[in-house]
């Protein structure tokens, strides 16, 4: 038995490493069963006919997926997710970067500002959703204030699609109502990208900037040519983290707008919840969940791949 183990490996596994592995093993098994096992189970359900409360595991092929792609609501969900993701990530990066550059100017009371911007991150999305729902509600908050001046903003009840064109059965374009939700999400998450960028900026040595200035670079050029390229890895991390938040978003929209008129603020997460837990369409719900997983994988997998390469 002992002979069968190659010499090299025997050397590699010290007692400490073995202990570490042994302690990791239970959690690995838990993850295999409760994460990957359940993902596979969801995938299995999504291919079945389990669309009532009575379990029916007979094989349905891709029926549930085909149903979704022909479904007006799911098409609207994909459109909304696309625009939500673009606007949300764009705004979080730009705002976070701008604020972090301002904060990096060694101003007095920096920690106070930092706390102000970081604070919204301490809240959960469901709280943010409720707060913004109040703010944008027609009979309370900000809208009531605007009413005093005779302005009646429509905010998230707006069903207009900007720059829209007919694509299949839905109007493809930016739903105006999404902007209200994006504002709330950005309000919540900008602090995170601010913190990331600030850490990044602090990591760039002063010598580098000084050297560039000595060479006659303007302050603008210093940022464009020296600092921003150095911040690329951070931007990558922010994009990955924000992308998976926005593709899976549920609580914020559930609390704030719901599906919205004509499903202008509906997202796959909401649809999954209603399909599964209200309609008892378990197979359809599982199919939505699997599609959400694949969407996230599109972002995460290349990232994991590249970081693995980097390790080697």
């Amino acid at each position, binding site marked *: 038995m002992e002979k069968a183990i190659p010499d090299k490996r025997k050397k590699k596994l010290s007692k400490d490493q*073995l202990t570490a592995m042994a302690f990791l*093993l239970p959690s690995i*098994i838990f993850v295999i069963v409760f994460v990957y096992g359940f993902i596979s189970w969801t995938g299995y359900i999504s291919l079945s006919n389990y669309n*009532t409360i009575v379990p029916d595991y007979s094989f349905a092929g891709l029926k549930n997926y085909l149903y979704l792609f022909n479904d007006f609501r799911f098409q609207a969900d994909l459109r909304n997710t696309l625009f939500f993701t673009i606007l949300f990530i764009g705004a979080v990066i730009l705002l976070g970067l701008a604020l972090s550059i301002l904060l990096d100017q060694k101003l007095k009371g920096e920690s106070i500002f930092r706390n102000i911007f970081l604070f919204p991150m301490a809240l959960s999305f469901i709280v943010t959703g409720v707060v913004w729902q109040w703010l944008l509600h027609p009979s309370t908050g900000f809208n009531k204030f605007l009413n005093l001046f005779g302005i009646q903003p*429509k905010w998230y009840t707006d069903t207009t699609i900007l720059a829209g064109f007919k694509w299949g059965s839905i109007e493809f374009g930016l739903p105006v109502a999404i902007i209200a939700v994006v504002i709330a999400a950005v309000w919540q998450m900008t602090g995170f990208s601010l913190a990331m960028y600030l850490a990044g900026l602090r990591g760039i040595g002063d010598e580098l900037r000084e050297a560039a200035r000595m060479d006659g670079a303007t302050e603008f050029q210093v940022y464009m040519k020296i600092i921003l390229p150095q911040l690329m890895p951070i931007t990558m991390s922010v994009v990955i983290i924000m992308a998976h938040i926005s593709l899976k978003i549920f609580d914020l929209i559930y609390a704030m707008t719901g599906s919205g*008129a004509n499903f202008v603020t509906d997202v796959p997460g909401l649809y999954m919840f209603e399909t599964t*837990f*209200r309609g008892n369409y378990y197979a359809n719900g599982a199919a939505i969940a699997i599609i959400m997983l694949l969407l996230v994988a599109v972002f995460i997998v290349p990232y994991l791949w590249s970081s693995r390469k980097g390790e080697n």
Partner: protein
Amino acid sequence: MKKFFGLFVLLALALVVSACTSDEKPDTTSDSGSTDKPKDTSSDKGGESAVEIFSWWTGAGEEDGLLALISLFNELHPEIKVENAAVAGGAGTNAKAVLATRMQGNDPPSTFQVHGGEELNKSWVAADKMAPLNDLYEANGWMDKFPDALIEMVSNGDNIYSVPVNVHRGNVIFYNMEVFKEHGIEVPTTVDEFFAVADKLQAAGVVPLSLGDKESWEATQIFENVLAAELGRDDYLKLFAGEIDFTDARVVAAAEKFGKILDYVNEDHASRNWQDSAQLVAEGKAAMINMGDWAKGYFVNDLKLVTNEDFGYFAFPGTVGDFAVITDTFGLPKGIDDIEATKQFLTVLGSVEGQDAFNPLKGSIPARIDADPSKYDDYGKDTIEDFKTAKLFPSLAHGSAASEGFVTKANQAVNIFVTQRDVQNFVDALQNAAPDM
């Protein structure tokens, strides 16, 4: 080395297995059915029994009603322990998800709240999870104490599966009396009269009908009432029995009228829920609202309005003499421990005392026709009177007329229709969903 590895694998597996099986049964009820514990000698039927009541009654009036019911039960049956397993969350969404998990995991509560009609029949009865209650009805002589149409809603074939505790009416319009008086408006009794009234109000700058369809059921509720008005009660029943198609000319006409009604609602309906829209009526910004009678509870208890002084009510135009029933019922799931204790609870639930303890607080009317009207307010008395004579029809928006699946798809179709107003699309969507009814 390998030995160690094997040991750890075993250990880890044991952990997983123990985690998987740890949901066997919470300890709190472990002494309920066991006979090998002689410590409790005072009780008469061999050990303490318990009943777990599962509902989504956690809101203001409804929780009071439930607690009153439980304390009445405690008084009558001090030997039975009551466990209130209410799950909070709008219209029972969360509770229903929890219930589905428990039922499918073979861990049913002793009894649970479920709307009479297809929510009961197409889900739990179809899944063979419910025990019939015919013997309980016979033992208590309930067969002629509940209206036949109501018993039919909680029955499947010859078997009765639950006990209704209350009735809400879905086809009511509440209106601001001052607004009506100011503009000299008479209560409309047909859909056409409603349109005339609405035109008059709109011309005067008042929103005729308040709507808050942040969740679609509020709009679906209007549609079901227009359907009942257009088809009449009997054909409405046939429609949901699958004997009439949704492409039928009268359904199309109902959809058109529904679209026309939507022209009279407040512009910001999509950002309001039903309470927010009821507020518009209370403030006089809107004249009417179609809402179940829980709106009366909201007006009286929360907004401190006076019935028949500040606000009045009438049957949805075209459905005078009909009664859209939303009924909360409790059944007996299969595979529970304390069948006898649960039956005792259901007996109290179905009794006059039980119904009169619960309903005045909840704001609904009793499901029994022989309850004591003097315990109810003016609105309750009127509705109890109507309930005795009206023709009952099950509500679609509240899961009585069709399965939860169809309701979900119908809500979806309504949401799209409210914006797009494409009648053909709308009836097609309903017809496509019809096999799921």
